[in-house]
């Protein structure tokens, strides 16, 4: 195999930190390199150097043997290096075809040649297994999985020889992820190379031909095969032994706190019932589109139920708004923390005290000093690595998640719903989040955890409620919960 891309001694300094320290990397044609590391290990920096967003301070890049010095993303694209971001960069209002050929629509006499556009788009979509998709479909109507493939089709249409995939499976179900892996296999067989970034270590053996682990800006290890055990990778990533992946949940479970019965929201889910006890962790499992998030949002008052009842401590309650839900002690740590959990441009302090403004009001006045005190307290409570006076945007993913959890603590929650609590956070922060969940649990709070990572749900929950296509298809106690049982229920109906 010939080297497609070679990096030697790549170094990049940012004010106060060496983000990348003499990193070597060789990518061959048709090779899939899994690039791993904790948040802040230098993965993004490396990728940004490859894709022309930043320029290295030292070291050199060679592409097909020639010196390669991209000054901007357009240079990288011209050279055949495509980037597929975690959140796809497609315009939701435009059609798939227009998105793929954005900025280079085929013209005929100065007008867009739509038949040619459709033909060309169809050709690209066929390459990624979307031959049946109508190129005129607006991207907004597509599922996340399909959008991702469309984005890959777009990169391929630019004659990409190397595709950088940044956490492509973060929002995919296991089935969709498998489809993506198959696509990667096929394209790799055609000679397309991949740099594959992921936090899901268990998929590395499936997809990677080689594994590179970064830590503190350095390449700490490289395996020239993909078949590496997760524990080994974790050890390389954190530089120490991480003992148990999922700590055992506290054993004692108290009385019933929340009961939902016959919960229905038209078009999203139907007739969902379950209970949560004090100090119990209830997992909700299901494929993407099964209605997990939708159920969570209704319980937290974010959306309204069309039918169904809520009871708290055996008494009927009404939950018609987040305000009411929070008043009853039902709070949500939402799936998309950047869009629904945090006001990114506000300070950590103002984010973490947002639900408590009324409670902190004395004689009509809420004193900034009181908010600072409260936020310092909460930061300690969740072991936040960051200052209350920095903007929420500048925190790492794991620490942002801690803020979203911490903001509910002063409200004395009875039920905390975690929707994808560890998505996109690194190994260390994951452990911290599990610990917070357990601490709440030990205090008698009822927990609902939704996760697309089945091992996570199985690892932390006392009981797993399985949804399929908006209906409850079963409930599995911890002792009997294994992947096969849950998957069988998840694909039912």
């Amino acid at each position, binding site marked *: 195999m010939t080297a497609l891309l070679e990096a030697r001694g790549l170094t990049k300094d940012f004010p106060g930190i060496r983000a990348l320290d003499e990193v070597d990397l060789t990518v061959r044609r048709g090779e899939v390199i899994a690039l791993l590391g904790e948040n802040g290990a230098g993965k993004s920096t490396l990728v940004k150097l490859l894709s022309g967003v930043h320029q290295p301070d030292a070291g050199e890049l060679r592409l097909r043997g020639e010196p390669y010095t991209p*000054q901007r993303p357009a240079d990288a694209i011209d050279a055949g290096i495509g980037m597929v971001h975690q959140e796809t960069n497609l315009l939701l209002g435009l059609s798939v075809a227009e998105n793929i050929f954005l900025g280079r629509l085929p013209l005929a006499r100065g007008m867009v040649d739509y038949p040619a556009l459709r033909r060309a788009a169809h050709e690209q979509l066929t390459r990624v297994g979307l031959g049946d998709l109508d190129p005129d479909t607006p991207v907004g109507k597509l599922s996340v999985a399909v959008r991702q493939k469309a984005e890959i089709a777009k990169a391929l249409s630019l004659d990409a020889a190397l595709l950088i995939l940044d956490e492509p499976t973060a929002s995919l179900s296991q089935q969709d992820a498998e489809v993506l892996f198959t696509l990667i296999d096929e394209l790799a067989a055609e000679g397309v190379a991949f740099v594959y970034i992921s936090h899901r270590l268990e998929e590395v053996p499936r997809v990677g031909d080689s594994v590179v682990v970064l830590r503190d800006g350095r390449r700490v290890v490289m395996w020239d095969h993909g078949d590496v055990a997760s524990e080994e990778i974790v050890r390389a990533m954190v530089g120490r032994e991480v003992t148990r992946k999922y700590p055992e949940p506290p054993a004692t479970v108290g009385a019933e706190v929340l009961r939902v019965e016959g919960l229905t929201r038209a078009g999203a889910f139907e007739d969902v019932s379950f209970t949560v006890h004090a100090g119990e962790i209830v997992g909700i499992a299901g494929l993407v589109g099964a209605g997990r998030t939708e159920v969570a949002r209704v319980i*937290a008052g*974010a959306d309204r139920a069309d039918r169904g009842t809520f009871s708290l401590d055996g008494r009927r309650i009404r939950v018609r708004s987040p*305000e009411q839900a*929070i008043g009853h002690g039902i709070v949500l740590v939402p799936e998309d923390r950047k*869009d629904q959990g945090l*006001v990114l441009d506000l300070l950590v302090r103002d984010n973490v005290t*947002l639900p408590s403004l009324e409670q902190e009001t004395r004689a009509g006045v809420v*004193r*900034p000093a009181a908010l600072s005190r409260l936020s310092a307290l909460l930061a300690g409570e969740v072991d936040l690595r960051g200052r209350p006076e920095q903007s929420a945007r500048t925190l790492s993913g794991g620490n942002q998640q801690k803020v979203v959890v911490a903001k509910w603590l002063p409200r004395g929650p009875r039920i905390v719903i975690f929707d994808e609590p560890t998505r996109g956070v690194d190994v260390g922060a994951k452990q911290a989040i599990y610990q917070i969940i357990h601490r709440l649990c030990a205090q008698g709070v009822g927990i609902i955890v939704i996760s697309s990572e089945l091992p996570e749900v199985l690892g932390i929950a006392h009981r797993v409620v399985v949804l399929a296509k908006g209906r409850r298809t079963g409930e599995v106690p911890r002792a009997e919960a294994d992947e096969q049982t849950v998957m069988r229920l998840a694909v039912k109906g």
Partner: protein
Amino acid sequence: MTEEGPDPRNPSEEGSAVDEAHGGQGEVGARDATPGQDSPAEVDAKTADVDDTARGDRWLRRLTARLPSSGGPLIGLLLLVAVLSVLSPAFLSVNNLFNVLQQISVLATLAIGGTLVIISRGIDLSVGSVLALGGAVAGWTFAEAGLPMGVAIVAGIAVGAAAGGVNGLLITYGRLPPFIATLAMLSMARGAALVITEGQPISGYPDWFRLIATYDLFGVIPFSVLLVALLYVLAWLFLRYRPTGRALYAIGGNEEVARLSGINVRRAKLKVYTVSGALAALGGLLLTARLNSAQPNAGFTLELDVIAAVVIGGASLTGGSGTVTGTLVGALIIGVIRNGLNLLGVSSFWQSIVIGAVIAGAVMTDTLRNRED
């Protein structure tokens, strides 16, 4: 003085010369960056072009980064005052400065509401019309219905608050974009003011009412200026110390996050638009007192000056940021430019051009500074 007043109907009384002096950091920097971009780009390929743009940028950013985040507009104002003092000896007198304050008092009153609305990521285009409506209702209540002036004042402000409340309802429950809802109110309130006054000014008010605009404490400090100062203190306290005030920044920053955090977003928005309407009507009363006449055309296009003052003061139209102190400085900048250019004998046509340049320069400075992070 009465007739030229702040004349909200004519936003185009401005001038020129002070431009480069004041426009300050933004413009000076921009001018330096431009040649940097151009010349090497002609000489050589893309690389040179990129490097140099970056260098020009850095220069500009270093300059703007030195300013404290809220102090940018203030420094602009001080520069402006310094330059005008040199150019016109009449400018820096106590009387003239209070004159400026009095001239901006109506604009500044409305701009408080504008700040709250813009922080919440909204916009209120109706304030100029609601100003006229408030004045018209008060005038009609006193002159036509024959009720006491005190009742007329309450009626005027209540109608303004109601108009703002309707804006709020249209936006929250009617789910109209604020731009559309308040554009509709701009048209309706103006129409209502014309209907009530039958298109004619309503003149002749009790002396005590006129004193609101004409009485000078200790012979120099206009009462209306004190009133506006009090409003600013209240608004500052509201944004800093009231839960709703603090929540406004969260609502403007990300409404869904605020809602999921248990903030009653609808109630907060209703409040904000209602207050904006009430303040607009109060502005209408101030203007009526000064002119001794309620004019159905009063406040025409004043909403644009309000937005300008808020934006020059550092608020972002994308919501989540802004301060009343910044807005006050923004209103002062507009007032000082108009006053100074008048003193220098610059035509109102030119003043309009200068104010436009200041808006662009101020926001550009702000954007460049924010790019730092």
